[in-house]
């Protein structure tokens, strides 16, 4: 040994890496992926493969030929975006439109800002909302769970529980009539309900949440803030008028709330850095979601809520600092 290596401390590293975190998220998404295959069969498979493949390809082409950087597709983040976009689409969604959505997600949502870590909005949600606004018919046709396993474009469709609830209340049906049409809590928890391919099974999403907490990929604050504030807000509405507002449990278990709270709102670069900021952001998402679900034009509002709060993140990070050590003296 001739020369000694000299560098500043620390001289050791935790071994954590971007790849570990991104592949960790992919592992955490596997239960929900399995659930989407179980309930929506071949359609979910086509949607997922198309979305993930397009995201990887789009990132490769953009980084190599447009930005002229070393392609970063092996870090796992493009695959995460692809999976999340697929989870947010109905399982009978046409391939051509998935490709458009995936290109928008990666191109507009991520690479145009400089790639991993730079995107102010959740890329998968940018793709989803683009598709929702551009192709509202295709984006709101929901294959029946289990029954549509063997079919793709021609799957038999029905309404989502949130849509049934919203239209029922709007058309003046009695609350008990509506409840009779929607799946039970147990069915919602297990995922036996219409909806986007990856959002239906609450239990699968919770398993993924547990895995990410165990591996310290995310902290619990944002999901708990989103779900908690949704529960409290809908709880108050339900208490004020039980005949016009669904129960908190219904709101938590239906639609994309779990998927959004656990996997979409926690996107690193589009969420706040300080714990207090995470609470504000999470509560904002919950409140906006319930507001859209209750008074808005759409039956579901989690995607818009997350994107709106994404826009506030720079402001939150500027004004909400972590709690400093030694700020207050305990006398």
């Amino acid at each position, binding site marked *: *040994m001739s020369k*000694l290596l000299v560098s500043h401390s620390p*001289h050791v590293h935790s071994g954590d890496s971007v790849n570990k975190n991104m592949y960790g998220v992919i592992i955490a998404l596997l239960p929900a992926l399995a659930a989407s295959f179980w309930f929506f069969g071949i359609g979910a498979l086509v949607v997922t493969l198309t979305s993930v493949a397009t995201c990887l390809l789009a990132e490769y082409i953009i980084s190599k030929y447009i930005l002229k950087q070393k392609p970063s597709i092996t870090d796992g983040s493009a695959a995460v975006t692809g999976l999340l976009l697929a989870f947010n689409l109905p399982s009978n969604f046409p391939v051509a439109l998935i490709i458009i959505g995936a290109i928008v997600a990666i191109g507009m949502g991520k690479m145009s800002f400089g790639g*991993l870590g730079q995107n102010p909005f959740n890329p998968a949600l940018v793709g989803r909302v683009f598709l929702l606004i551009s192709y509202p018919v295709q984006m709101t046709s929901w294959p029946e769970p289990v029954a549509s396993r063997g079919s793709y474009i021609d799957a038999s469709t029905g309404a989502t529980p949130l849509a049934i609830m919203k239209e029922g209340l709007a058309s003046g049906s009695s609350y008990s009539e509506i409840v009779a049409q929607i799946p039970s809590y147990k069915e919602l928890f297990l995922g036996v309900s219409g909806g986007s391919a990856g959002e239906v099974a609450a239990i699968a999403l919770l398993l993924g949440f547990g895995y990410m907490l165990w591996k310290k990929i995310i902290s619990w604050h944002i999901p708990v803030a989103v779900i908690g504030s949704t529960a409290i807000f809908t709880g108050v509405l339900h208490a004020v008028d039980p005949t016009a507002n669904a129960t908190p449990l219904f709101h938590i278990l239906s639609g994309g709330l779990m998927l959004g709270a656990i996997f979409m709102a926690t996107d690193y670069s589009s969420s706040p*850095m300080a714990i207090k900021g995470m609470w504000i952001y999470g509560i904002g998402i919950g409140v906006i979601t319930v507001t859209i679900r209750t008074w808005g034009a759409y039956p579901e509002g989690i995607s818009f809520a997350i994107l709106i709060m994404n826009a506030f993140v720079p402001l939150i990070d500027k004004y909400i600092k972590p709690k*400093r*050590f030694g700020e207050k003296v305990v006398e």
Partner: protein
Amino acid sequence: MLKTFTTGGVHPNENKITASSAIERVAAPATVSIPVSQHIGAPSEILVKRGDQVMAGELIAKSGGFVSANIHSSVSGMVTKIEDIPSVSGYTQKAVTIKREGDIWDESIDTSDILIKEISLSPSEIIKRVGEAGIVGLGGATFPSHVKLSPPPGKVCEILLINGVECEPFLTGDHRIMVEKGEEVLTGITILMKALGVTKAVIGIENNKPDAIKRMIELSKNYAGIEVQPLKVKYPQGGEKQLIKAITQREVPSGKLPVEVGAVVHNVGTAYAVYEAVQKKKPLIERVVTVTGPTIKKPGNYLVRIGTSVEDLIEVAGGLPDDVVKVVSGGPMMGKALPKLNTPVAKGMSGLLLLPQEITSRKESQNCIKCAKCVSACPMGLSPYLLMTVSQKELFERAIEEDIMDCIECGSCSFTCPSSRPLLDYIRFGKAEAGNILRSKK
């Protein structure tokens, strides 16, 4: 009930390879080079010249100010050189080189192992003796101990905290001192309590040292006012402010000294040195150094004369293994990488780590992914990602607004960053520049 601090913290692999290796005395080397700046504060003034004969324990450089420390010869022999040598930081420093002849100790020093528990000195005599003996904080900070025993006017010390945490991975010197020299440490603590005029002392020990906790609890029953507080393992619990928070739940305000919340913290190794200085009249001329690494032949806790060259010490531990690329003075989280091996062992050297490539190599830095793990890891509640960015952009005023001066440089941020960003490197730079700005404003 295990206690710990609440803000941030990380869990590096402990790697306490030498936890059960008894302290082993290393024979005095043929020559020693004793630097005059081994402490925080003014360098000491050299009292000897070339050709002088000195005894082990004889004063060779006297304290150069209030915040400074005396320095003694660690061997007997002849002063052969007074010259500039490389320091641990890579700069040069003045050092006195002594060629050893025999091993004759100053006759006032009691070199026996007999335990003396009776404390005959008054508080002011204790502080004077601690100052004379050249004792500095042996956890690595090397702040002169007699200064810490003289709280500023108007401040009252209520509790003495003894740092037996040793939260740095690999290091085990304090652990072994507690296990092997428990009575001496407790007597040392009693001396420190008397000097500070406090009736209560708490020894904080992380529970990865169950034998030390057990031993200290057992022995402390015979010492009035001393308690042992087992702590949950978490880095950087040995940080002064973190230890105070863990044990007393008090937070030292930003920019203030621990005495602001009524606490003074001394290290276990320092308490032992204080015992030797006060009861045995032995100045600080040797210390325990954990020489360790995953591939070295004879890792151990070595009692070494100050001024022994690192090269010689490595030979004692079986030589430098081929795969070692970095030699660190101190622990892996806060220690300094040595540029040269002809550096002497100084008072602050708690460990000597011989690290192979796979442990210590840095990965290529990637974009910040804003995962916020550095924010959660920071024990001072800062935003390391932001401090790095503003330091990089040389926005030092902004760095001051973001409390960069509160950074304790523990390295938890760089340790934890999934993108392997050199957070602390830049924060150190920003902190130094911010410090210059603050000083120029005064």
